[in-house]
């Protein structure tokens, strides 16, 4: 989670809020008042693309709310084992759409802050419950955090309904997702108690892949080589990640050796570098 960035993105969401999805591309070009908006007209069907991403984000948050509900019930009923088994898979719905959640003010810290990211009195959300489950092996004391978490995911769902997805958010969001992996998941810092980092890793990559798939056709028109390079790099990373699958999920981060994390990290860098050039479709 990145509080600073969240503020910036929120600002940009507000700036572009006037550009409704019912405006067509030509109107947008006429009304253009900023670089990003002008360049966005380089792609004609932005509304369609951002609309599809919005649908994806809504679908993921719907599932997030439903799965969090189950997780929260387990916590509240004192079922530690069920809560533990639901924890990581539930979080994946959040991790896939993290950039958009980060654009929504305090929601990201409320849902996803790690210990010391925020003041102790403000610390809540998934990781607070994670600590309770894995360090103290109990749900006792976590019930209120569980209720808050469910409320926060519902608020997220409601806010995503209203948010305007900007082309620049898509382009930078894909790289953001991989940067999340690079800075906290591949190092095992995200899930410091449960060591379920690879679930987040996979979900972040899936979220980035979704954005790439949406932009693929446009990107191919403007830079086929870049598009191909990104596709190959996604394949390479996903293949490597698949070797750490275990049942429906992934092995514990503690099972990874240094050469494993190094390999994953290098494949991630190999993907994120060309992916960061995707902004080329926004023009100069």
């Amino acid at each position, binding site marked *: 989670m990145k509080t600073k960035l969240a503020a910036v993105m929120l600002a940009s969401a507000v700036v572009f809020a006037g550009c409704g999805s019912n405006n067509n591309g030509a109107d947008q070009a006429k009304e253009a008042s900023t670089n990003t908006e002008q360049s966005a007209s380089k792609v004609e069907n932005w509304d369609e693309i951002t609309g599809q991403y919005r649908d994806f984000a809504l679908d993921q948050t719907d599932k997030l709310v439903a799965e969090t509900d189950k997780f929260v019930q387990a916590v509240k009923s004192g079922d530690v084992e069920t809560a533990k088994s639901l924890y990581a898979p539930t979080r994946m719905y959040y991790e896939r759409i993290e950039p958009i959640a980060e654009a929504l003010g305090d929601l990201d810290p409320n849902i996803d802050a790690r210990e010391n990211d925020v003041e102790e009195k403000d610390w809540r959300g998934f990781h607070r419950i994670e600590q309770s489950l894995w360090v103290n092996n109990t749900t006792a004391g976590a019930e209120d955090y569980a209720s808050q978490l469910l409320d926060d995911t519902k608020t997220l769902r409601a806010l995503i309904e209203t948010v305007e997805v900007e082309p620049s958010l898509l382009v930078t969001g894909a790289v953001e997702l991989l940067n999340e992996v690079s800075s906290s998941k591949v190092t095992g810092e995200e899930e410091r108690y449960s060591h379920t980092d690879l679930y987040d890793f996979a979900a972040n990559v899936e979220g980035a892949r979704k954005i790439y798939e949406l932009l693929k056709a446009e990107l191919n028109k403007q830079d086929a080589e870049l598009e191909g390079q990104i596709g190959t790099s996604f394949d390479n990373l996903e293949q490597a990640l698949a070797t750490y699958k275990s049942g429906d999920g992934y092995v514990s981060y503690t099972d990874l050796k240094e050469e494993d994390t190094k390999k994953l990290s*290098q494949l991630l860098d190999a993907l994120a570098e060309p992916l*960061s*050039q995707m*902004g080329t479709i926004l023009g100069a």
Partner: protein
Amino acid sequence: MTTDDKKHAGDSILEKPVSRRDLLRLAGVGGAGLLLGASGVGAIFGAKGSTALGAAKPSSEDQIDFYGKHQAGITTPPQDFLMFASFDLTTNSIDDVRKLFKSWTEASAAMAKGVMIGEVNDNPNLPPTDTGEAAGLNPSKTTITFGVGPSFFDARFGLASKRPAVLADLPAFGGDELREEWCGGDIGVQVSANDMQIAFHAIRNLARIARGKAVLRWTQEGFQRTGGADSAGATPRNLMGFKDGTGNPDTKDEAVMNEVVWAQSGDGTPWMAGGSYMIVRRIRIRVEVWDRSTLGDQEATFGRHRDSGAPIGSKKEFDPVDLSRKDGKGKPLIPVNSHVALARGNGSVKILRRSYSYSSGMDNRTGQFDAGLLFICYNRDTRKQFIPMQQKLGQMDALNEYIVHNGSAVFACFPGVREGGYIGDTLL
């Protein structure tokens, strides 16, 4: 002189062997000052680059052209700082390797000139092509020297038959305690510059350009006393306090360089003609142990006086090393197991050393310094030059009590690149 004339004057030296007269003539073209501080062929191409730039800023004397008959950074007088990087290729496609070498060539030529890499440095929607930390700085005599290791010639790229016989993994030497993390690599890149930030910038950008094709395997930064701290340019001292490099052959003597450093077309590997073989050894110095040995022991270990750098029993640094001189009791003045006695041998085998000191913080297991020497040398035939020398040193060198070799790599450094060509274009 018109721009075209200058260009012609510059290009012509790329196409024929360079005589000393050419060198002087070019010095006239480019400005006599351009030759100061540079030597041999490197200086010629330094001058050439400057003339081609024409209206370049006054710092052009600070510039060493990337292009030339030989790669820069070999006979170039050692700059203040080093960043060495070993890369492993992650692609199995020789086309990708060629693309990488072309991109690296363009970027390196730009960095040697001190200009930004690439063209997309002002688009708000994209990450800038150049990472920017060297923007506006003088070229600082940046040289970037590329070579390929033995593993480059394994089954991946179908180049096995092109591997020079000279380029093989080194045998195990006495005193080796090699650590995988500081060994080998498909590609070796030596960046030297008079500014550490510029040197780092070079490796950082090369690594970035390589993403998806190659990854860093290991890196090492190095330093020596700066030109600013020693404007006279005396032989630098290593971290043991002794002068290092006194016995180097004269890089200004083309005949000697052809004998000692440059692979020749008749040496069995035509694509390496004009290139050189680089050996890199990460040698940790047990500085804590060294610091508590007496001056007498230290001097007997090196075979030289610490202060003057002179061979034991002599007065001046460059006095001849005479191993036959005896003391009053008939014992050799310069101990037979001293570093200079063994390294020099009978004087017939030479290498061109281009080492830098390194400091990589603290060894957390012991609380001691991880500091020493990143030994780099160039030779024409490693089998006849470096290996026999190191075999003797590894077994007998009195210095071994104070040092440990913990990293090692060898690379075939390509011949120089002509403008329009790319590194390794004689091979692939």
